[in-house]
């Protein structure tokens, strides 16, 4: 390779990196502002009924229209998305801790590994929605029940990935060679294993968000989730089903679309972060 070719490639790489970074930052700003807007919005004002404004179609004044109680759907949707992000964040934290513990545990010996695999398989084999509803009921339902249920059931994919990844790294030839170079177990864990799984963990956490958000919305929609007075998207959607036949399409359309966009944003961030953290796959 000549010098100029190399420079050019370096430039293109940097460009791609910058672009990815930019997209990620913009997506993050949107998410954070949606979340923060919840603290600035006067919940009381948004959620009290206003009977002069009932069932208005989307306009400049009410971007997403209003519902049968005259509440602004844009504000309700914002609050709903805020709840979704909150639930997603909490679920991700709990699930990540569980996944890391199990993943690291499984590398201790084959017996522990088998137990861990059995636990992962057990949780993975129960239909997820059902599992969430059961755990939620076990925690007494309501806000607390939903958060615990969504949090305690989303660690299986990440735990599985971490277990497999740690196992793969541990049996690789370069780890064996590292042993022959006289490196300690701790050194190997710190220098070889941790840097390889940290990107999996970060990406896993981000990609857990959309799942957790969708599941919370689903069970709220089904009526097993958050209490009916919360402005959660699932509840908004369930309510608006009753009004769809009357032609009030905006009640379901905009909140649903917003939820979809939120989920896609997290996916986008997850993918981009994956590319940023993983220069190898980014070059392929």
């Amino acid at each position, binding site marked *: 390779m000549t010098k100029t070719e190399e420079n050019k490639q370096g430039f293109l790489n940097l460009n791609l990196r910058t672009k990815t970074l930019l997209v990620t930052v913009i997506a993050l700003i949107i998410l954070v502002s949606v979340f923060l807007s919840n603290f600035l919005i006067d919940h009381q004002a948004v959620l009290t009924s206003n009977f002069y404004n009932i069932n208005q179609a989307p306009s400049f004044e009410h971007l997403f229209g209003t519902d049968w109680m005259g509440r602004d759907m844009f504000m309700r949707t914002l609050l709903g998305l805020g709840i979704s992000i909150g639930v997603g964040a909490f679920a991700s934290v709990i699930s990540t801790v569980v996944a890391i513990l199990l993943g690291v545990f499984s590398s201790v010996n084959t017996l522990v590994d088998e137990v861990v695999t059995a636990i992962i398989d057990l949780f993975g084999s129960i239909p997820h929605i059902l599992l969430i509803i059961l755990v939620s009921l076990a925690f007494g339902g309501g806000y607390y029940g939903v958060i615990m249920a969504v949090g305690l059931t989303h660690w299986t994919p990440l735990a599985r990935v971490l277990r497999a990844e740690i196992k793969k790294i541990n049996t*690789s*030839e*370069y780890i*064996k*060679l*590292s*042993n*022959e*170079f*006289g*490196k300690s177990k701790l050194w190997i864990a710190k220098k*070889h294993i941790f*840097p*390889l799984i940290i990107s999996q963990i970060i990406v896993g956490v981000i990609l857990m968000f959309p799942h957790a958000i969708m599941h919370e919305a689903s069970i709220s929609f089904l009526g097993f989730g958050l209490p009916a007075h919360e402005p959660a998207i699932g509840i908004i959607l369930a309510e608006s089903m009753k009004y769809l036949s009357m032609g009030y399409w905006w009640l379901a359309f905009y909140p649903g679309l917003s939820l979809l966009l939120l989920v896609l944003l997290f996916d986008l961030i997850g993918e981009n972060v994956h590319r940023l953290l993983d*220069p*190898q796959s980014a*070059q392929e």
Partner: protein
Amino acid sequence: MDTLKAENVNFGYGSHQILKNLNFEMNNNQVIGLFGDSGSGKSTLCKVLTGFINDYEGNITVNGQKHKGGYNPIQLIYQHPEKVMNPRWKMKDVLEESWMPDDSLLDEFGIKREWFGRYPSELSGGELQRFSILRSLNPKTKFIIADEISTMLDAVTQVQIWESLLTVARKNEVGVLVVSHDKNLLNRICDDIVYLADITD
């Protein structure tokens, strides 16, 4: 003088016995060729000698000492260098995991400094193999086990690499066990050639 000794070594994958009662000895001033049929267990022996496989029976010693932790004085150079390098490490880190040779040694092996900033996937097999060899030439190494290390190289590079490796090995008094299917190569560079069938039952 350092002596590498393998006594009554038995090893098999599962119930499939590969090495039966193997006995072998060499010293650090020798370059020995190891020859044998494909699938007869040469690579397996190399892994057993260098600690990559450690659930074997028998004794492998350097000056009567078994290797227990720390830097292994018997180092393996692998046929596939990319497998013994962390794919996410830059070449400088890969090399430094063992040691950092001085400039003259880097030049001897034709290693360019600009390669240091690259990942293993960004170098050719031959270039990676030079790093692999240099890594094993850590001053603490007493024996090098070279398992078909030049199979993937062109004739010119092959000659270059062997010349460099043997020059350094002779100078530092490192014993080399050369595994190859290339009888001409073994005849040319080795003091002696052993057949795997002759050192096992």
